[in-house]
Every structure is written in structure tokens, then in C-alpha cells.
């Protein structure tokens, strides 16, 4: 075997797609399912009111009755984290869905248009992508003002350009595919071809991106509300709980630690799921 062939076979071995181990996949999916349940039916997990104060039970360490401890006003941190999942999931899913749809429309338009239209849209995407997503979200908040709905819109707008870019590239690829060519030759109207062939085939990579994007969106939204730009206290929102916990780090670490752990676990789970989708998509192509 020549050196080159040996090198090539080694390349083939290292170039394998990293598979996610099955147990990790189940843990990630299970965690997200629990999160979904807690957002829909928080009473299944806790009977405690997340905003009821009880000064007598302030700053209690984690223990029986209060698995995550209590905060400075005696509110149960576990109940607040459970109820908080609704805000985070609504913003995470909502923002990602908006960004996905807007990105798909802008990106496929750019990919389908002729030179000038594509040029203008691509340049616009490029300019917006010069900004870090978090800074972009902050600027959007500066324009539309703080609040829960603003959070969702700001996070969505901040990530639209990334989706648009992927959608554009994918559209350019699909546009030249054999089946599109065939549809055109058979005289299928362009609009039908786009809706029935181009868009569905562009959607795949975008959905993989969106799966991972939900986690990013949740982190970004928590960051914005940590800065005080989202819901007002005492709303049980993850970022807000963390910012309240900041003042009690010396005496009550649990207020800040547990919500952060839950956010991290959420993002890890969406990434694991996204990577699995990516790997199986890559496997199908070969």
C-alpha cells in the first residue's frame, strides 16, 4: 500500500461523523420532556406558589420541603425554577420559530433572485452579521423598549441573519438539483416548484440549526432579563432569579446556582439533540 493510500484510509477513518451515544440522547430527550411538562403543568412538580413570600422562611438552605432552598423573601427557589420554565420555553421556541420563518423567506428570496436582488440582500445580511448577536438584541431592545414581548422579538431578530444565510446557500444548492431541473422541463409553474421542491429541501439544515438555536435563544433571553431588560420582579424568570441571587452569593449560593444549572442542562440537551439530528442527516446523505 502506498503512503498516499495509507493516508487516505486514515483520513476516511478520522472523518467519521461523531455519533452521540444513545444513553446521552435519552437523558437529553428526557430532560427536555420534563421541562416541557413543567412549563405546561407546573403543579405536577410543585404545590408551592412561586411568588408567595414568607419572611420567616427567608434564605433557607436546600433541604426537605425546599429542595433548592428559599430566597431573600422566603420564596421557594424550586417552585420559581419550575414556573420559570414556561417563560424560557415560550421565548426560546417563539424566537426560534420567528427567526426560522423570517430567515427562510429572506434566504430563499436571496437565493432565487437574480444578481442585483441577491447582491443587495446578501450585503444586508453581511452587515447585520457584523454585530454580535447579543449586542444586536440589546440594540433592538433600545428601540422597542424592555419587557417580555420585547425579549422574544429582540432575540428573534438577532438570530435571523444566521438562518437567512444558511437558507440562501441551501437554496442555491437545491436550485441546481436534478429534480428542480426536471420540474422545470416538465413545465411545472415556478411558484409551485419553489413551494413543493425548493423550500422543503432547504428546511432540513434549518431545522437542525433551530434545534440547537432554542438553547441559544433561552440563554440570550435569560441574559437580557438578567440585565433587567425583561420581565419585572418578582416574576419567576430564570435570568431574573439569577440577578436577584447575585446579591446573596456570600450567604445563599443556592439562589443563583440552581437556575443556572437548569439553563445549562437545557442548552446541553438541545445541543445533544441537534447534533444527533445533524449526524443522522449526514448519515442519510452517504
Amino acid at each position, binding site marked *: 500500500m502506498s*503512503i*498516499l493510500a*495509507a*493516508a487516505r484510509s*486514515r*483520513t476516511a*477513518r*478520522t*472523518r467519521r461523523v*461523531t455519533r452521540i451515544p444513545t444513553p446521552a440522547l435519552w437523558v437529553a430527550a428526557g430532560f427536555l420532556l420534563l421541562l416541557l411538562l413543567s412549563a405546561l403543568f407546573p403543579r405536577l412538580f410543585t404545590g408551592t406558589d412561586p411568588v408567595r413570600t414568607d419572611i420567616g422562611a427567608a434564605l433557607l438552605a436546600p433541604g426537605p420541603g425546599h429542595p433548592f432552598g428559599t430566597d431573600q423573601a422566603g420564596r421557594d427557589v424550586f417552585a420559581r425554577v419550575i414556573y420559570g420554565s414556561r417563560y424560557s420555553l415560550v421565548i426560546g421556541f417563539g424566537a426560534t420559530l420567528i427567526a426560522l420563518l423570517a430567515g427562510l423567506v429572506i434566504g430563499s428570496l436571496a437565493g432565487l433572485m437574480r444578481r442585483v436582488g441577491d447582491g443587495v440582500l446578501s*450585503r*444586508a445580511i*453581511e*452587515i*447585520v452579521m*457584523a*454585530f*454580535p*448577536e*447579543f*449586542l444586536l438584541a*440589546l*440594540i433592538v*431592545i*433600545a*428601540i422597542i*423598549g*424592555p419587557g417580555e414581548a420585547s425579549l422574544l422579538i429582540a432575540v428573534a431578530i438577532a438570530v435571523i441573519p444566521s438562518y437567512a444565510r444558511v437558507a440562501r446557500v441551501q437554496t442555491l444548492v437545491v436550485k441546481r438539483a436534478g429534480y428542480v431541473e426536471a420540474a422545470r422541463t416538465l413545465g411545472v409553474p415556478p411558484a409551485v416548484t419553489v413551494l413543493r421542491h425548493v423550500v422543503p429541501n432547504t428546511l432540513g439544515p434549518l431545522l437542525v440549526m433551530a434545534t440547537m438555536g432554542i*438553547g441559544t435563544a433561552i*440563554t440570550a433571553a*435569560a*441574559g437580557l432579563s*438578567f*440585565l*433587567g*431588560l425583561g420581565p419585572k420582579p418578582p416574576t419567576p424568570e430564570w*435570568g431574573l432569579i*439569577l440577578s436577584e*441571587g*447575585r446579591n446573596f*452569593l*456570600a450567604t445563599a*449560593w443556592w439562589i*443563583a*446556582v440552581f*437556575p*443556572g444549572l437548569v*439553563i*445549562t442542562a437545557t*442548552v*446541553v440537551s438541545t*445541543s*445533544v439533540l441537534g447534533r444527533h439530528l445533524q449526524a443522522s442527516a449526514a448519515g442519510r446523505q452517504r
Partner: protein
Amino acid sequence: MILVVWGAATVGFFSLRLIPGDPVNVLVGLGNVSQRVRDQIRADWGLVDPLLLQYFHYLGRLLQGDLGTSYRMQQPVVAVIGQQLAPTMQLMGLAIAFAVLLAVGSALLGRGRRTGPMAGLLELVAVSSPTFWIGLVLIGVFGFGLGWFPVVATAGFGALVLPAVTLAIPVAGILSQVLRQGLDDAAALPFVDTVRARGASQTRLVLRHTLRHAAANSVTLTGYIVGSLLGGSVLVETVFARPGLGRVALNAIVNRDVPVVLGIIVLAAVSFSLVNLLVDFVADRLDPRLATEQAYA
């Protein structure tokens, strides 16, 4: 580069006009002033001119390096940003150094069959944890718990360590992922056999040859990394109550201080463009093939 800065300034200028409310309210603060004074202020700040005229005035001043005057602080935006540039640059500089150290370390250690998945898991957690939460945990453990580092922002190097580590961790995660992939790919290239045949040791091979190949890949990430550091500095400076650009940006956004927000936008666009120029330059040096490819393209 000019296009990006111009585009950012233009989009920023017009979209910030959409902010509801009267800028005069921001200018006078909470004070109660008569309509006559308000009109006077409006005229002084050029807010009565047609929008397009204001826009061209702004562009003209921008060309001379003038970003206008802050509504809130009554001083030039260039001065406001200039004063806060140093602390943020120190923070970002140290963060990049930590990130590179951590990433190279984890990429070199995480090459084995057993350590690989471990490194992968650490990278995933590092990338997934919210920056501000990492900061809080570090303050709790090393500030309050062990007392190694000051908890509040003071002058000196000690106070810079925790914020820089906070900012570095997610970046190190991404960098390590790319480096490990790069090392893996480079290890399969034909030149590895040549270097081995020359009798070079494994250490020399990795440090002198494959690491260099892997680095060329990760340099292209620099733009993304600087961007995420800039965005992250807003959070980190808030967590650690440090002065800096992030705080200036946040205050300007909360107070609706339009000239300062616009100044930050222009600054971000300029730094993005500069970083990209630099990346192209460095990438050519690290991988001479890139330069020749461009020459023949």
C-alpha cells in the same frame, strides 16, 4: 470595510429614530421645563432639521471622527467611549489569552481514546453555560468561598482574573472543539509520515507541525470570538460591577441615549472590519497556500 461601517451607521441612524418619545425628555432629565426652553434645546441639537439633512450631517461628522454628543452625559461620545475603552480592552485581552491557553491545553490532552469524550463533554458544558452564571459561580467559589480574588472591582490585576476567566470559558470551549478537529485532520495528512520518517519525536510533531495546521483553521474564528467577547462584556461587566464599554452600552440603551448607542454600533462595525483584515493577514502567514490561491484565483 467602509461598506460595513456605512451600512451599520445608516441602519442604526434610521432605526434609532423609531424610538418612541421625545429626545428632549432624555436631554433635560426629570426637570420640568417650559415649551420655549424645549424648542430652544431642539433647535440647538439640530433636531428640527429634516431627517435626511440630520443624516448627512451625521455622516459628515462621522467622516471627521466625530460621533456627536451624548444626551445624558453632555460630553462628546468619542470621549465617553474613549474613557471606557481601556478597562474593556484589558478584560478582552486577558480573556483571549486565557481562552487560548485553556483551548490548547484541552485540545492537546483530549486526543486520546479515553480523554477525547471527556474533552468533548467539557467543551459542550463550557459552550452551553450562560456567561453571567459562570461569573456568579466563580465569585461564589473563589471570591466568597476561598477568598482568593477580590469580590468587587478594584484596581490591579487580581480583580481582572475572575472576569477574564468568565469571559474566556465559552470561547475556550469553541476554540478547543475546532482545534481538536483540526489536530485530528492534520494527523491524517501525508506530511505526518514525512516528519516521522525524519525521526522527529511525537512531541515535536504535534507542537511544530500538526498544531500549526490546526491553528490555521481556528484563526478564521477570530471574528466570531471577538464579537462574542464584545457581547459578553456587557454581562460580565454587570456581574462584576466593573466599568467599561459594556456598561456604557447598557446604560445608553436603558436611558435611550441615542448618540452613544449609535457610537457603540459604529465602534462594533469598525472593530469587526479591522479584525477581519487582521485575520486574513495572519491566515496567509500561517498557511502560505491561502495567499497563493488568492493570487491565482
